[in-house]
């Protein structure tokens, strides 16, 4: 399917999502490109349609809705909680399928009851699919960035390693490579003699002063980018890490955790058993997870096939907790029909003064249309 025709069910779907207490918003097709490259990364550059205005500002055709919807919310200085719905074309260079296709979704901003908002997002997403493909066999994979981070903390890993591993969440290949790296030791590159002793003594102030001199010689402004203190701290941190090894026991516990893949309704029990067996305290992350499971049950989607996969994540650095994707079991090659997640960091990154929690999902209408044809 190429072309830009809206699927026949588009207006019904727009009615369904806006009836779920969400305001249908119009987002301009032409958007400043920086916000997308900043948030989603430069990898997006080859997939968006970039252009420039007369002043040389980079513009692009809207490649997705979440970022402009959140930006719009910040610019309007709108009150929270607030729910936005959208349905429209997005433009991406794809190898498969057309470059113009439709997406619809809901962004739920500022609901302090995160468990309830998460469950509602899942219920809205699944209801949207069900409107069009009532009989399709679906599987929703649910992951949780916060649980993964809590496990890393409970393993007693140094903070530097925790952060590194947390970034690789949802990317099994990268995670595996990192674990192998961490089992061996990392060293600082060759240092000039005058710095070696300062690093060994952990003398951050002395080291920073020496680095600042080096910067001046190189003509680099110590205030413009990485500061001497920042470099000094990381040098000392690395020197300390070089002597730590990932204990085999921690390694095994992490592997056991990542292999957990169970129906959501039994997931809390599994996580409790796992943390007891390893004497971990997963703290508020687990409480939040359990509250969400309860909320999902109350949202009336317990008959749906929702699977908790401990290793499932979506590789964007603004996701903070829940992440999920719904696929059609009959069309595994199609990819996700819906993708969603919680992005409590995104609005601050986009310039919101107060921290505003958010959760949302996006439906690929071309994929939905396909499974509707298959399953009806």
């Amino acid at each position, binding site marked *: 399917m190429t072309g830009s025709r809206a699927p026949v069910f588009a207006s019904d779907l727009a009615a369904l999502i806006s009836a779920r207490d969400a305001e249908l918003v119009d987002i301009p097709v032409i958007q400043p490109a920086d916000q997308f*490259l*900043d948030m*989603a*990364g*430069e*990898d997006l*550059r*080859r997939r968006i349609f970039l252009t420039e205005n007369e002043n040389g500002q980079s513009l692009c055709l809207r490649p997705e809705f979440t970022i402009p919807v959140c930006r719009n919310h910040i610019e309007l200085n709108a009150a929270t909680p607030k729910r936005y719905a959208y349905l429209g074309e997005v433009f991406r260079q794809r190898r498969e399928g057309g470059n113009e296709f439709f997406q619809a979704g809901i962004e739920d901003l500022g609901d302090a009851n995160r468990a309830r908002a998460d469950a509602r997002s899942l219920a809205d997403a699944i209801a949207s699919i069900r409107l069009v493909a009532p009989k399709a066999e679906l599987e929703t994979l649910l992951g949780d960035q916060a649980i993964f981070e809590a496990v890393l903390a409970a393993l007693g890993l140094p903070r*530097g390693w925790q*952060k*590194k591993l947390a*970034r*690789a969440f949802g*990317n099994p290949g*990268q995670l595996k490579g990192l674990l192998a*790296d961490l089992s061996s030791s*990392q060293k*600082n*590159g060759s*240092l*000039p003699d005058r*710095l070696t002793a300062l690093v060994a003594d952990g003398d951050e102030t002395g080291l920073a002063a020496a*680095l600042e001199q*080096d*910067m001046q*010689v*190189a*003509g*680099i*402004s110590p205030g*413009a*980018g*990485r500061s001497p203190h*920042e*470099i000094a701290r*990381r*040098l000392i941190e*690395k020197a300390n890490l070089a002597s730590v090894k990932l204990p085999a026991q921690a390694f095994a516990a992490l592997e056991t955790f990542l292999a957990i893949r169970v129906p959501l309704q039994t997931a809390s029990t599994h996580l409790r058993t796992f943390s007891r067996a390893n004497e971990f305290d997963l703290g508020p992350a687990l409480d939040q997870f359990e509250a969400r499971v309860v909320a999902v049950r109350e949202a009336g989607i317990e008959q749906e096939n929702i699977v908790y996969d401990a290793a499932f994540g979506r*590789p*964007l*650095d603004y996701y903070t907790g829940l992440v999920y994707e719904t696929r059609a079991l009959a069309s595994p090659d199609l990819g996700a029909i819906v993708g969603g997640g919680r992005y409590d960091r995104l609005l601050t*990154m986009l310039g919101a003064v107060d921290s505003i929690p958010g959760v949302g999902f996006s439906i690929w209408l071309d994929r939905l249309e396909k499974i509707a044809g298959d399953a009806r």
Partner: protein
Amino acid sequence: MTITLALPSKGRLKEQALEVLEKAGLKVILPKDQRNYRAQVEGDSRIDILFLSASEIARELGYGSVDLGVTGEDLIRESLSAADERVQIEARLGFGHADVVVAVPEVWYDVSTMADLDDVAAEYRQRHGRRLRIATKYWRLTQQFFSQMHGIQVYRIVESLGATEGAPASGSADIIVDITSTGSTLQANHLKVLEDGIILKSEACLVSSRRSADPTAVAALAQRIQAAIARG
């Protein structure tokens, strides 16, 4: 039917390309008028020579508007998406050596590998309110190396059209991706190449377009040049 062979229009690359052709028994009769960018091969009317800039050659090979060309591998891989589907490298010519590398300020003593850079990039925004900036004119190579090979997503490319190596000192970027042959320019600017920061070892190549209208003639000419290089 004639085929078009594109050659660099100036400098050492042009001279060395002409030498390689001469070894293969292809003597290019240079136009009397220096501004003319077309030429012929002595005693062979089936080959058209076209002088273009090295980056234009890469692009034209991708379109298939020239059949063969001599240009740097860096320009081929930078100018063309899915380069291997559109062109084929027929021979490495042994000149025009340059590495495309990731270089950071020497004073970043804590950063010696891409893994270090990943750590720095991940925390950059939180510390400095903006992403780590990379100055380069090789945005495609940079993006493939950082995003696809090393899983580093959070950085921004600042397109630089000249004097890339000065970007960290001028404050327009934090690090650079650029070509280097001896490393002396990097050194003079107090920059160092990361241990695993070599993106591509480039040199001048004979490249054919997969969209040529006369693949047989292209293959024959490529073979003739390959044989000459093999003879040394």
